[in-house]
């Protein structure tokens, strides 16, 4: 199977899934429709509308981790091709990535020492 063919199969799978869900919704609709009644559409907040708006700026108390995560996530993009040729390249590959990871790990330790790895207030 060529690569193009494989991606066509995956695309078909995606479309098929969406189609399946639509069929399910149509089936549920055929069994019975939703009655419009007052108060039914209130979100689950003890039966009354929420006092405050929901779509507001949320204090992401994990932002310290999230910033470090960005650095590590970029690094993973380099790790995958490296992992495939690792055995061919041998010790050179180990040292190359070792230095790179050591620097990154020092970054993690520095972030830790500066209090990035805790719940921010």
């Amino acid at each position, binding site marked *: *199977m060529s690569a193009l063919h494989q991606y066509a*199969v995956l695309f078909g799978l995606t479309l098929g899934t*969406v189609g399946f869900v639509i069929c399910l919704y149509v089936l549920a609709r055929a069994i019975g429709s939703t009655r419009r009644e007052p108060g039914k559409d209130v*979100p689950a907040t003890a039966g009354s509308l929420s006092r405050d708006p929901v779509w507001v700026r*949320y204090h992401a*108390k994990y932002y310290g981790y999230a910033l470090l995560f960005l650095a590590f996530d970029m690094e993973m993009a380099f790790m995958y091709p490296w992992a495939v040729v690792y055995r061919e390249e041998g010790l050179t590959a180990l040292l190359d990535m*070792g230095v790179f*990871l050591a620097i990154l*790990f020092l970054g993690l330790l520095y972030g830790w020492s500066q209090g990035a790895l*805790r719940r921010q207030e």
Partner: protein
Amino acid sequence: MTVLIVLVALAVGAYLVAVLESWAVHGRLEPARPAISALALLGRESLLARTPDRLFFEAGPVVLLVAGLLAVAVIPLAPGLIVTDLATGALFLNAALAYVLVALIMAGWGPNGAYAMIGGWRFLGQFVAYAMLIVMPITAVAMRAESLSTVDIVTSQSTLWNIAYQPLGFVLFVAAAMGLCWLPPLDLPTARGDLAGGIEAEYTGARLAVLRLARMVLIMALAGATVTFYLGGWLGPWLPAWAWSAIKILFVAGLMVSVGRLVPRVREAQYLEISWKLGIPLALANIFLVGVITLVVPI
């Protein structure tokens, strides 16, 4: 044809795991329960919350289901029994699973309800905790197999399964996988008794049925990934290949849905701390150890 066989196998597996999960939760073994609750959900009204973000609300469960199925597409069940044997299979699995976060944020944001929104943001924090522990152990697996193709990864374990070769990676991967499928004790986005259902709070009827189905597919995908990467996939004596895959995947999925319930729920801040202060150093050590072993021992 292969696609159909895999999808039927997935449906049967998901059903069995749903039975196991209800056994673990309710303490009663009821083989008909998933079918009954699915029918009940289809028969119920599917409400739309007041002033929702309609696009996100509808898209959330569908995106989750698509992500789970695309992840299943690169899991080999037997030689030749795989939807697409991509050369970048392991990477594709990561790419598909990245959409789990997107789907849950959509499901949290969509209905404009406080509990759902908190569940969504919590899952973002949970993602920051588990994400590196999914990708780093897979790197070590790919180093041994010299390939990202999931079929090659299975065949690379013919002499010794990766669970023995890199046990550290296995433990980290399974823990992160439980976080990814928000299974207890890491069920922060739904958090029964805490967030009134969280991201599931505003979903009813057919939409909730799709959301639950998607979660089951995701659990099967992660169990399949664990078996492929660490438990030798279809490899095993006496029985045919597909039977070994089925036994291993059902066993791992059964453990995932049942054992975590014995542990108290981990708070988001704790989970982040554990994964970054303990998990990531261990994952890096695992990559280094596997690197040294692959250079010294030629298996």
